[in-house]
């Protein structure tokens, strides 16, 4: 995988819609590592066979990891110190 092998945060919208009732990609998150605040859609998404890793577009640290299996979705959000969701944004 090279540094170019990533997508925008937009690409995580489908998987995250399994868990959240609102569109998380248009929510604003704060990177727990560098403090950058940005909509999730501008983060970098690295998909893999099991789900995806979302990294901060500024410092590159992991914001979110989502793993999807047949019967479950697991999401690790520890790289986000907060997430500001607009309730009107449909997933």
């Amino acid at each position, binding site marked *: 995988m090279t540094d170019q092998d990533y*997508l925008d945060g*937009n690409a995580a919208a*489908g998987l995250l819609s*399994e868990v959240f009732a609102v569109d998380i990609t*248009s929510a604003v998150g704060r990177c727990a590592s560098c403090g950058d605040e940005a909509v999730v859609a501008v983060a970098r998404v690295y998909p893999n066979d099991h789900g995806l890793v979302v990294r901060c577009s500024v410092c590159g640290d992991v914001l979110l990891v989502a793993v999807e*299996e047949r019967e479950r*979705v697991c999401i690790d959000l520890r790289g986000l110190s907060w997430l500001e969701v607009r309730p009107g944004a449909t997933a």
Partner: protein
Amino acid sequence: MSTAWRVADVVAARFETPTARTLRLRIPGLSGHLAGQHVDVRLTAPDGYQAVRSYSIASALPGDELELTVEELADGEVSPYLVRGVMVGDQVEVRGPVGGWFVWRPGDLTPVQLIAGGSGVVPLMSMARAHSAAASPAPFRLLYSVRSPESVYYRDELAALARDAAAPLSVEYVYTRTAPAGWPVPAGRLTAAVLASAALPASASPTFFLCGATAFVETVSGWLVDAGHDPSRIKTERYGGIGGAS
């Protein structure tokens, strides 16, 4: 899990180019979509192996149907089936439409500059169609960087949208490998100078929707920022040779 997956019927299909096909899907329960959204498509092999890819919506339709345009990638797991294999009457699993950021809403009257690299034109076409369907007075421009005349999607419809008196669209092509006969400039990659002459100026405070391969998006968004455009008004969607595009 996966309550979000629904079975869609393929109700129509047509080729846009020799390697790109538009599929019209009917999704029970769907009531419209936003311009710029995408859906995830899931295929399941007889042995249970599943592959999921994201495809942008090309249409701007109000009901339970939408259209995707899929470019075939020779080494793709999903796109060869969607371009060559699936037939009208077949079914595919879809999740979405999703995405609330890379979208254009008809109530937004801000000038819009669309910039497409190759098949990145797909979600921008949805915006152009929505703009026309809403008879929006918002100034709309499309700069379409494409390899050759044969690679252009939606050419006739783009020409028709440009003539739409209620909601005109300005369309400008940049041919990167082969230009049509008589084209005023030789084929070549988009440059900062061409971008500056084709795009709405920073004084118009346009919103940019930029979609293409990662290198294209990175380069063009850098030029826009250098030209004084507000980074918060530059919305990008990139596809790579991985996950979302194959």
